[in-house]
């Protein structure tokens, strides 16, 4: 029995063969798993090697001589992942190879023994033999096997090689900023500053614009930073203003050479807006049972008119209660119970542990 023969067999033939080899419940196994287990019974471990090699070939550039790579897929990590996913034969194949390579490491040999035992007795180790066979349908099997998905996982890059800064409003009082400055960006800013360039300091410049009593007010503040890339929280200039952040070099004289600018964001207001003037708009209602897109038609737009409105709210987030929303300092007792806004919240507030990314 070799791998090609197994691959050529129909599913019914595989079931029959599996029963002969005393593999429990073969109908519940996918073709892939059947092949693995039958292969393991027959001592065919080459399939695992072939699969790993195929995966490796797929992911690496196809050069005549594959370059040496520090990330050899036949690693303990991959073996552990395979074992966690239930691809025991593949895990076993890798562990055997590793154990042969490093015979002094007893834990590798132990893994080989454990996996061999598991393949010989496929019942889950957590379920005592006293438990009667499950009368339940297990989830539908995977249409095809794994292994490529796990290899998509990679750590994100530290930098992107682009001058960049972004600002986001966390709440009316705080901003979140991240930035990146390249050597070329820094050099260009230094050049702009001329003779002062060598003594310039990397700085986040927060500019805000607000309209107050009909007048436009602009102000800015500088925050020195030490790293070419990073993220941090800043105090917002004021609730309700529009904010832009620039990352750049500031010379001792105060001259500022920007390297990158953020988009403008509106910091949320923390209190009710002015009472008026209020404009009114008439919009044609949507026709019932119109299946297609129906553009919004603004019929009229007109100025203020007398209305009798709703009474003042006396509620936590209501009129004039902005202080109730302000985040509390650590250790301070909150004015309002914070739990009511989203309690018990979405279904992710669940006590059981996560599978920590591995389904099995």
């Amino acid at each position: 029995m070799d791998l090609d023969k197994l691959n050529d067999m129909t599913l019914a033939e595989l079931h029959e063969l599996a029963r002969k080899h005393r593999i429990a419940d073969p109908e519940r196994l996918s073709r892939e798993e059947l092949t693995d287990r039958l292969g393991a019974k027959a001592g065919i471990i080459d399939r695992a090697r072939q699969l790993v090699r195929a995966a490796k070939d797929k992911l690496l550039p196809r050069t005549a001589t594959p370059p040496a790579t520090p990330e050899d897929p036949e690693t303990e990590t991959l073996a552990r992942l395979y074992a966690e996913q239930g691809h025991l034969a593949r895990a076993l194949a890798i562990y055997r190879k590793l154990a042969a390579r490093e015979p002094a490491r007893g834990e590798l040999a132990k893994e080989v023994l454990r996996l061999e035992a598991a393949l010989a007795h496929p019942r889950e180790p957590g379920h005592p033999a006293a438990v009667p066979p499950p009368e339940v349908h297990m989830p539908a099997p995977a249409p095809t096997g794994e292994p490529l998905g796990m290899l998509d996982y990679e750590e994100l890059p530290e930098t992107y090689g682009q001058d960049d800064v972004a600002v986001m409003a966390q709440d009316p009082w705080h901003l979140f900023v991240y930035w990146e400055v390249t050597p070329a960006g820094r050099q260009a800013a230094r050049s702009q500053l001329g003779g002062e360039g060598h003594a310039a300091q990397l700085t986040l410049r927060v500019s805000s614009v607000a309209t107050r009593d009909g007048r436009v007010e602009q102000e800015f503040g500088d925050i020195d930073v030490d790293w070419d890339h990073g993220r941090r929280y800043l105090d917002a200039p004021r609730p309700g203003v529009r904010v832009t952040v620039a990352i750049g070099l500031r010379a001792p004289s105060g001259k500022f050479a920007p390297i990158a600018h953020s988009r403008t964001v509106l910091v949320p207001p923390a209190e009710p807006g002015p009472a008026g003037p209020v404009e009114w708009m008439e919009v044609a209602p949507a026709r019932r049972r119109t299946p297609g897109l129906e553009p919004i038609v603004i019929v009229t737009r007109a100025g203020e008119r007398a209305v009798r409105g709703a009474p003042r709210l006396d509620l936590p987030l209501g009129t004039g209660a902005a202080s109730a929303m302000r985040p509390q300092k650590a250790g301070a007792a909150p004015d309002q119970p914070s739990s009511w806004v989203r309690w018990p919240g979405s279904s992710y507030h669940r006590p059981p542990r996560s599978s920590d990314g591995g389904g099995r």
Partner: protein
Amino acid sequence: MEPRGYLSLVLHAHLPYVRHPEHRYFLEENWLFEAVTATYLPLYDAFSRLVRDGIRFRLTMSMSPPLVSMLRDDLLKLRTAAYLDRLIALGDRECARLAGDATFGPIARFYRDRYGRLKALYDQLRGDVVDGFRRLQDDGFLEIITVGATHGYLPCIREPAARRAQIKTAVESYKSHFGRHPRGIWLPECGYAEGVETLLAEQGIRYFFVDAHGLLHARPRPPYGIFAPIFTRTGVAAFARDLESSKQVWSAREGYPGDPTYRDFYRDVGFDLPLSEVGPFIHPDGIRVHTGYKYFRVTGEVDLGQKAPYDPGAARERAAVHAGHFLWAREKQIEHLAAHMDRRPIVVSPYDAELYGHWWFEGPEFLEMLIRKLVCDQKTVALATPSDYLEEYTVNAVAEPSPSSWGDGGFSNVWIDGSNDWIYRHVHQAERRMVELSHRHASDGDGLRRRALNQAARELLLAQSSDWAFIMKTGTAVDYACRRVKTHLARFRRLDRELSEGRIDEGWLADLERRDNIFPEIDFRTYLE
């Protein structure tokens, strides 16, 4: 007699896209199976009973594209059916185990019968829960609205084209599933950012919701407060969440679900029984999970070990009392508001749909009884959807809503936090690259490249889901959430590299299309500015 005001109940149904065909059992897929069993089927069941009894009701339900896609996915439907079968099998065992127990035996039978009925309902729907809700919409009972494509939190999406893609993709997905154009949208996390209304108007969406301070802090102050919508300058209406009615249901201290009579969520045989009893019904590796067999009631502020046995009959009676109380409070609220307003007020009460049934076991019964009482027992309050209200009141004040969300604190503190802020630099970079790629290949006729670009758009959308940041903040399944963000971004980055190098690995791409198969009709040109 004409009503004096309206109550607009809004159920927001959403789960992140969790589908792992590569695993036979995946713990996080249980989120869907539990929600189907505890919430969506019981809600559908309750609505169907109302229809059968001739109760005319109007209710708004947002169904997020990831949820709709999962509910209609063949693999997940099979797994949901298997999950229900396992619940019934566990029920048979529990009934046998507790046959002579006068206290717990009847509760076990109650669950087994319930899950049997739900499985029959699921089979009757042929596993297509979405189609059941669609028919309720077509018959005029529900107004189903859409949600951002993958529940991306719009205030944290940097590129305008990427915000537009979240909305446009959601609209297209809605049309393919419900056969019509969506009237309204639930902004993910109720998160409003300046300018969103322009994107909604482009897509013909007529209304959205904000939290109360989204209108209370609007510029200028809306004359009717939160009890009538405003029009944004684009003509799209914004309705605000009512605080009082929200608090009655949501509040940890004062809300109904905390009543001692109601079923306790945390005590479950999945944790209480020895492995020899529940082994086949929990994670195959022996990790204990909730099974849905919960024999105790909330009881009060006592330890889990001191909880008293659950009494389904008493809980049902309590739900009826609470429905009556909720209605009474709305009548009083609307009488009070109507006395001060020159139009009928609308009280908007949005809730996570999963609250009803999943967390608050008796929630669907509460809702059914509330609707029955509201329609049959009084005339002060009528049910209305936002569309109904906009038909009656075509003239509204114009204002700019205030940036806000319904998260803790009311702004972006949940989604911009030390636990999750690392994601934005990377997701924003992917947004920018996606816009660049879509411009570069806008008129590209190559089929393989188009598939790669469409898949890149799917990976970006999946990475943008607000759920990942939320989970990182709440600390429940953090590793999984981090892996999801990194995996989708890694896949995006590789597609980007392969597109740039002109060397697309078709086998790998096909594998990705099989795994991350949301939005089969997506067009990457959605990202054109």
